């Protein structure tokens, strides 16, 4: 097995250009090793990205926030700018696993693993993020987050394509966002259902709302009907917009055959209340 731990992006690019065969990238390994627990495993080419300091950075520039793929959940949750301007992202990161997982698990790893129950993709979709991807030829490009995750699950990343980070447009001063999830426990839990909501609130009226349901289908999705229910409504009356009912109907339509549907269609009503409370 070949193993590499590049420190600079140029070293990573050289590896991508010269190594043959499938390359497996790892970062915090909180999913990678957990999935291999007790099982024999082998990779032809294993590349740990953890030493790429450039991907640990988080910076605001020209109205957007750039988050390196190696930023940990704990690092993101503690960042003042994110807590104040992107509270949905801070809340989602704060709710990931245990302290040990948040110290080690990365936003890039979470998205690249594309678990239907992951907490990062729903919020990145809510915030209209773009993914920065490096390809085998050493070219960097931006890809809409919705194109990165495939409808049936998994990512659109090809062999030797690496997720470098995310660009998130920073909302203006009137932007609000919130995230909530339901799991078997209150903490250290994997989402059975998650909900992210954002809206601009100016002069007490909501506009530009976005609503994302996660862990309900193989891929988190935007709920246009939910956004429409909030747009134009007074923020003070957000609980009366029928969002919970709308989401309940969407769940009944989208996962009608699933055993979890009867639970989720009811649970989402309470989750909607919780998330609107935090908005």
């Amino acid at each position, binding site marked *: *097995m070949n*193993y590499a*731990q590049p420190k600079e992006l140029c070293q990573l690019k050289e590896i991508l250009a010269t190594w043959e065969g499938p390359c497996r990238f*790892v970062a*915090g*390994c*909180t999913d990678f*090793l*957990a999935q291999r*627990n*007790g099982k024999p495993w082998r*990779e032809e080419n*294993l590349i*740990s990205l*953890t*030493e790429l300091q450039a991907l640990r950075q988080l910076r605001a520039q020209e109205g957007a926030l750039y988050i390196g793929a190696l930023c940990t959940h*704990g690092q993101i949750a503690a960042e003042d700018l994110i807590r104040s301007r992107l509270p949905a992202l801070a809340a989602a990161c704060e709710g990931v*696993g*245990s*302290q*040990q*997982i948040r*110290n*080690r698990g990365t936003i890039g790893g979470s998205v690249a693993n594309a678990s239907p129950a992951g907490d990062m993709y729903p919020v990145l979709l809510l915030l209209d993020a773009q993914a920065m991807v490096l390809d085998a030829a050493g070219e960097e490009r931006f890809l809409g987050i919705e194109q990165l995750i495939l409808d049936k699950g998994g990512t659109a990343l090809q062999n030797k394509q690496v997720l470098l980070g995310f660009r998130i447009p920073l909302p203006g001063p009137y932007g609000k966002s919130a995230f909530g999830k339901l799991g078997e426990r209150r*903490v*250290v839990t994997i989402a059975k259902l998650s909900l992210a909501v954002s809206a601009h609130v100016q002069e007490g009226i909501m506009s530009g709302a976005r609503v994302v349901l996660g862990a309900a289908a193989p891929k988190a999705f935007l709920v246009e009907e939910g956004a429409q229910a909030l747009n134009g409504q007074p923020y003070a009356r957000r609980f009366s917009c029928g969002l919970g009912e709308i989401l309940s109907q969407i769940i009944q339509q989208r996962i009608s055959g699933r055993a979890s549907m009867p639970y989720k269609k009811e649970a989402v009503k309470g989750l909607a209340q919780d998330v609107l409370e935090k908005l």
Partner: protein
Amino acid sequence: MKLRFILNGQAIELEAPPEKRLIDLLREDLHLTGAKEGCGEGECGSCTVLLDDAAVHACLVLAGQIDGHSVTTIEGLGKDGDLDPLQTAFIENMAIQCGYCTPGMIMAARGLLLKNLDPSEAEIRNAISGNICRCAGYTQIIQAIQEAAKAYRKEAQL
């Protein structure tokens, strides 16, 4: 792969496969058996150690990834033969029953106290929420961590 890292304050060098898990490197190669393997998938916290002063699961770290970094295990907590305030507080508060979770619990608490010497009960609960004690002695564990925090604060004032 040649690994060079700081283990419990001492610089060490050893040869190990990079894909080996840190828990196996510690227990099998370095004979540091304080960190325990429970679930092997980051659920129970019994393998918790500090990596660059942050609590992590030793079962979810590749040996290669510690090259150039600092690892602290329960064996590295006490100084000059004396127990660390956390270890003393766990004993005095009877925060140990079977003891299997204890090294991980203490290292998770150490990770918290390195950042926050005066944590609230909620912050303590949050810091150890990934550490399972099946003897269910959480009340004593929380008391022990609170008491250790006091001892650390006192130490810091001296």
